[in-house]
């Protein structure tokens, strides 16, 4: 990659390159000083041009690394939360319960009636002092109840629970927030009862008002449900219309209209699909505001053109000899396509579909417009219940004022990027494994 004049000459000169330095003498009369100067200038320009190219590449790669690194470093913090260690002596507390009563569906209410909240509060004060216990989140006893439900034998012994601290204390621990909180956090940390711990619950909880209590599962499930609808609608329609346009469609005005529509739809900004969803789908189904069904429907319209375009390319790549061979042995035009062309084009179509789905998974704007931005604190339990999706959740958290959300947002971004990476690598794998050059 050195850029001396000789190598550049070499790149497109061939034999002249050797002559360049050694034969200067004999061609002296053409290589006047002005010529030499001009040549030097041209070579300098060449070097600068090449450096500009390297610079452009370097910039793009640097931005990519900075972006991903930034998210990853912040995201690591998002998978942790400040937790207070509270030992609870169940036999002493007088809490009663056995395997059957603790695993029953009413267990949480029963425990609440038995005074579990007060018990937790009491032991917290004992372990953390009054000030510290005040920073235990009010719903901490629910975590204890859930732990008891998961393992009823806990009730027979003393167990130390790691319970979420309030977001004020959490920001105190990370060196932000008010001075008192920082001091309190420092005291508690020195006593070993407050620490940053890996928060596995982040993957199983849903949205909440406090960054200490939020989780990503609700949004993730919403995304999955939405993607199922999108795939179920966009894939068949996309594949069938690609087959029709590429294999059967006569060349006429209607076909042209279809092609123009598909190309336009592929280029229309995604927010316009949101306007369509709002004006059409929500007028037809006013009860399904912010349901995965409507979100999936809107995204399907957006994804379909991508599938059609990639599908047509995949069909085009199947050599005509296959069709001729099938026709020659008596297959009907439909059999030719469904028995021979489609199976051969399918890997290419799947690749295009996955890429389209990855785009749909990261799409935010149209879903904002059709109302998938509501605060949804429980995971959706069907295609018609209110839900939110990962990118919208990221958008919502990024708007929160509480500093604790910054790391949570990055963690959610890391999960979203992970999913996209998985989908894209699967697409590349499919392409490499099944791609045939005829």
């Amino acid at each position, binding site marked *: 990659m050195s850029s001396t004049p000789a190598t550049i000459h070499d790149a497109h000169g061939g034999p002249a390159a050797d002559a360049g330095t050694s034969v200067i003498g004999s061609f002296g009369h053409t290589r006047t000083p002005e010529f030499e100067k001009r040549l030097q200038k041209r070579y300098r320009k060449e070097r600068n041009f090449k450096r500009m190219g390297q610079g452009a590449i370097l910039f793009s790669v640097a931005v990519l690394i900075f972006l991903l690194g930034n998210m990853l470093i912040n995201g690591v913090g998002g998978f942790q939360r400040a937790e207070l260690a509270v030992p609870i002596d169940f036999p002493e507390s007088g809490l009663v319960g056995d395997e059957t009563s603790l695993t029953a569906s009413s267990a949480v209410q029963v425990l609440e009636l038995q005074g579990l909240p007060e018990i937790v509060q009491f032991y917290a004060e004992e372990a953390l002092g009054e000030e510290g216990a005040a920073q235990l989140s009010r719903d901490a006893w629910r975590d204890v109840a859930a732990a008891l439900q998961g393992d009823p034998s806990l009730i027979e012994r003393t167990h130390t629970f790691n319970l979420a601290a309030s977001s004020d204390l959490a920001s105190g621990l990370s060196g932000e927030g008010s001075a008192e909180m920082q001091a309190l956090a420092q005291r508690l940390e020195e006593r070993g009862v407050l620490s940053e711990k890996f928060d596995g619950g982040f993957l199983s909880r849903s949205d909440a008002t406090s960054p200490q209590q939020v989780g990503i599962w609700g949004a993730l499930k919403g995304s999955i449900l939405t993607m199922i609808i999108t795939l179920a609608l966009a894939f068949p329609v996309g594949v069938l219309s690609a087959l029709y346009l590429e294999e059967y469609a006569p060349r006429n005005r209607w076909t042209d209209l279809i092609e123009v529509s598909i*190309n336009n739809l592929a280029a229309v900004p995604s927010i316009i699909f949101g*306007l369509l969803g709002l004006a059409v789908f929500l007028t037809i189904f006013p009860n399904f505001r912010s349901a995965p069904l409507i979100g999936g429907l809107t995204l399907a319209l957006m994804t379909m053109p991508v599938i059609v375009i990639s599908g047509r390319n995949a069909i085009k790549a199947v050599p005509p000899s296959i069709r001729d061979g099938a026709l020659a042995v008596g297959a009907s035009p439909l059999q030719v396509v469904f028995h021979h062309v489609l199976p051969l084009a399918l890997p290419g179509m799947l690749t295009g579909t996955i890429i389209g789905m990855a785009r749909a998974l990261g799409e935010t704007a149209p879903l904002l417009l059709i109302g998938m931005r509501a605060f949804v604190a429980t995971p959706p339990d069907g295609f018609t219940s209110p839900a939110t999706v990962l990118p919208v959740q990221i958008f919502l958290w990024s708007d929160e004022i509480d500093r604790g959300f910054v790391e949570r947002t990055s963690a959610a*971004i890391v999960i979203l990027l992970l999913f996209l990476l998985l989908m894209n690598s699967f697409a590349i794998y499919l392409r490499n494994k099944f791609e045939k050059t005829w």
Partner: protein
Amino acid sequence: MSPIALLLIAIGLGLAGWLAGRAKAWSFQKAEPNVRIAARPVYHAWYVAAWILMPLLGFLIAWSFLSSQLITYFVLQSPAADSLPAFEFERAAWLDEARNVALGNAPGVFNAGAEAFIEPFEAAILRVNIIGIVITLLIAFAGAAYAFVRLSPDFRARRKVEQKVMWILIAASLVAILTTFGIFASLVFETVRFFNMVSPVDFLFGTFWGPDPMSSADSPDGSRYGAIPLFWGTIFIGAIIAMIVAIPLGLMSAVYLTQYADPTLRRWVKPALEILAGVPTVVYGYFAALTVAPMIRDAAVAIGLENASTESALAAGVVMGVMIIPFVSSMADDSIAAVPGSMRDGSYAMGATKSETITKVLFPAALPGIVAGVMLAVSRAIGETMIVVMAASTAANLSANPLERMTTVTVQIVKMLTGEGSFDHPATLSAFALGFVLFLVTLALNFVALRVVKRFREAYE
């Protein structure tokens, strides 16, 4: 009975028809082993199944709209309906609550008055479900009977089935036209409603944007709906700042990757650029708002500019430019690759250096393609939403200072439609008018760009 359950029933009936059709075709074969039947049994099977499933699917789609209205109708017909409050809003709330309890979606009603409607709702739901199942069965049997009497040894089932499949293919490709039409119709419809309230002249040429969703909807103040600042903000961020970043960087990386880089480097850098293109826009928006914008503000303050904003147009524009780099790069890559090799070889033969060949031969020859690529990139940038929603401001501002707050068309669409405004208010409807302008502009840009690309390809083929 939910539409899903009816769908499962329909599929079951279709399967039964399929099996029966095939059995009948086999029976022809068995009765006269020496005669060839005109189509293979499987096509007879599909013929019967199609006659059961296709009308049923049509019915189910209609039924999923109809059934809930039918339930409400039956409830309103019941004697309990007399006790409904006259006030429309309250009435709807009562009915909704009772319906949810009857469907088992809610544990109880909030308004005591709605209690009386739970029972009528349950009765109506039962009635409608029975009607649904009966109609489903009737349609299935009618279809099956129609198809079944036609089966015979010389019945050309395959041609019939293939005709139907062809119709399905055509229907699938019509979805694209329908979608385009749907977008166009809904945008035009709402835009006309908006222009009935606010004059198009005020909208297109006014220079002050400040719709007030809380004001009275009857006499909107047209002077608050001037969209020029939005158009300017969109152009400034998407077509000027973003392109100043994206065009040189995209073009130079395409040139370097295709003309200079060795294959190993290309193998690594190209996927990296693709990753850059695949990052969701909400992530870019977060990056712009959280990292780039404060950085730019601090830099501006450091060189002595006091009024720099953290919602500056510059931050959104630069990040958008980065997002567009891979797009410009791949378009430039394609157009440079389409220039015939003989032109490049000719230039080298005359003793030109690589950079001279690129700037004086390849660029001019590939210019139409590059220009088209830039137009497509601009159309993407102005339609981009999340970066500007998160990093740009919502305050409209007609200014040429990139460090000032600025807003775009897409930001305002999101702002107007995610508020609490009523659907009949001009502030809400203005979002559709803005969307319509955006739709037309991106369409025009794409149309021209694709034309240019097509002609350019033809010139060298």
